[in-house]
């Protein structure tokens, strides 16, 4: 998404560069000069083309390697590998559905928590905050994005888990909430700390800086004229934000959210440290331990015995790869349609 607003400013540049280059070479007489330049252009074009192609090649290579190495389990289990609910190394049973669900569920919890906070922060920073707040807060948010995930994990074990246990889980478990029909499944379990909820919360904290920083940049990129037109029509600041600024940036903000989702999907270390690493009896239970695909890989790969066990884990990687691509395609389509909505307004 970020490429769309940028395109306008980037496109004129190559022309300018070419013009400058031409101006620089013009005084130089002789036919050799343009010929050299043409070779340079070809080489430069070829190099950049190869660079872009290499990204494509790497993705295909990853997909091919993962598929090749997981062939033993693909042959042995077929689609039951994805739908199976039991993973037991001793019995040699490998089903990844709980891991797939855990990845989707923990990422969903993270988005539910992170999106309102990130959007609020982005709107405040771009539209409302005075400079003396904006600069340090923006800096802090960017700092948050740079913290290694194992640090989040340690913080999760020593600060977040006890906090969730004392201030969230135990009070809720002692309240009438778990007995309400409909939500009863979500609020059951140990409630001792390591849990799906903890994973969702830590992921939310980790993706907030991403979504905030990108959304803020997108909001800042909206032309002044849009806001001024709105104020000119007598709109208040709130009306301008709500009806002009946010709708204008909608596709970009969705893109920012997808960026956060991508990070939540792949996050391994911090999740492994707080999720409890156990297939839950009720997959929706927030207070029970859970499992994600990446935490399963982190846990099981180093000690995997060769053969079916290793192939099964590589297939978990393949499934994660495919799920991540599918979610991205859906997101792209979503962005495409929301972007079309406002194209007329541009």
């Amino acid at each position, binding site marked *: 998404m970020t490429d769309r607003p940028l395109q306008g400013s980037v496109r004129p540049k190559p022309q300018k560069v070419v013009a400058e280059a031409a101006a620089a070479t013009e005084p130089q007489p002789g036919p050799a000069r343009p010929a050299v330049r043409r070779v340079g252009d070809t080489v430069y074009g070829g190099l950049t083309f190869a660079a872009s192609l290499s990204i494509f090649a790497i993705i295909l290579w990853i997909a091919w390697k993962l598929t090749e190495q997981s062939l033993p389990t693909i042959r042995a289990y077929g689609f039951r590998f994805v739908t199976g609910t039991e*993973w037991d190394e*001793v019995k040699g049973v490998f089903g990844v559905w709980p891991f797939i669900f855990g990845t989707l569920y923990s990422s969903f919890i993270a988005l539910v928590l992170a999106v309102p906070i990130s959007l609020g922060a982005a709107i405040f920073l771009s539209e409302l905050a005075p400079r003396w707040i904006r600069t340090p807060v923006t800096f802090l948010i960017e700092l948050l994005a740079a913290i290694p995930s194992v640090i989040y994990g340690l913080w999760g074990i*020593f600060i977040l888990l006890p906090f969730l246990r004392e201030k969230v889980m135990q009070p809720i478990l002692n309240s009438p909430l778990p007995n309400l029909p409909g939500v009863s499944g979500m609020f059951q379990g140990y409630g001792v*700390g390591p849990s799906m909820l903890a994973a969702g919360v830590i992921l939310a904290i980790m993706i907030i800086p991403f979504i905030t920083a990108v959304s803020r940049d997108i909001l800042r990129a909206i032309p002044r004229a849009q806001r001024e037109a709105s104020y000119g029509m007598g709109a208040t600041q709130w009306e301008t934000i709500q009806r002009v600024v946010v709708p204008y940036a909608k596709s970009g903000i969705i893109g920012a959210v997808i*960026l956060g989702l991508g990070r939540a999907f792949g996050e391994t270390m911090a999740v492994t440290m707080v999720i409890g*690493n156990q297939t839950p009896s009720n997959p929706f239970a927030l207070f029970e331990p859970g499992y994600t695909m990446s935490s399963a890989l982190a846990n099981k790969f180093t*000690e995997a015995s*060769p053969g079916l066990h290793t192939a099964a884990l590589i297939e978990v990687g393949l499934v994660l790869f495919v799920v991540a*691509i599918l979610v991205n395609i859906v997101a792209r389509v979503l962005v495409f349609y929301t972007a079309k909505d406002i194209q007329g307004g541009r």
Partner: protein
Amino acid sequence: MNSRTIKAAAVAAIGFGALTGASAARAQIITGAGASFPAPLYQRWAQAYKQATGQQINYQSIGSSGGVKNITARAVDFGASDGPMTASEMQNAPGVLHIPMVAGAVVLAYNVRGVPEHIKLTGPVIADIYLGAITRWNDPRITALNPGVNFPAANIVPAFRSDGSGTTNIFTNYLSQVSPAFRERVGVGKAVKFPKGIGGKGNESVAALVRQTPGAIGYVELAYAENNKLSYADVQNRKGNFIRPTIAATTTAAEAARLPSDFRLIITNTPAAQGYPIVGYTWILVRRDTKPGVKKFLQWALDEGQKMAAPSGYAPLPANVQKRALAVVNSLQ
């Protein structure tokens, strides 16, 4: 953003490939890789050995299976494992020898408010806690073993290793011997499916979970329980005595085991009257035609190195095993 998402997925998916391929060693450095259980000791050995001889040893703590894979692929000079190699693994790596290095105890650490250190537990009770058959600390089967201790009605939260580990192998091997139900439902392995509880990656993570979670009980290597100042239980052995896990009780258990000539034996559930029952050897795996430098290092580790074991929380080899292990090392080319 698309490529970033894919990159994240790709890193998660295949980044692990890098873990299995250890880099080729430079001629003068000796490389080893494998079990994490004895890694703290091996790293101390490497340091002391370098000071004594100038020879550098690089030990990577990548897990027992990684150690087996790497020595099979000749990617390292020695591997290390907490469990003996299986028959099929031995077929893929003919000529790999098991050298016992030290023994270690797996202890049950717990965190229950108002309960003193060193409560008494039996193997079947531990098995039923991990199976979910005993769910509260004031269960009559626990209180009967500990007269005078006032247990709260709190939930028991079993903590286990979520990653594959030799510690789990020793622990499940023991429980499967003392509880038919555990053998039936869970079985023995480096990675098993526990029916309930919370999982942590690595000894340090399980220790942290126990420390952080009221009502938790978890199995960790003795040194980790001591370093984290966790209470741990006395466990009843086959002779009916409740044994506190100590270095001495570990050595006693190790002495009682009759190791076969290739040293491949799991020694849990000792017959010794004063031996702690949840104990295992950890082995270094070498090829018969290994470098002379490796032979020298192993000779040192089995002699001088043994003195460093106890301060690090591991039991030195019993004298007879040490003698036999040295004989095998001396016979290396």
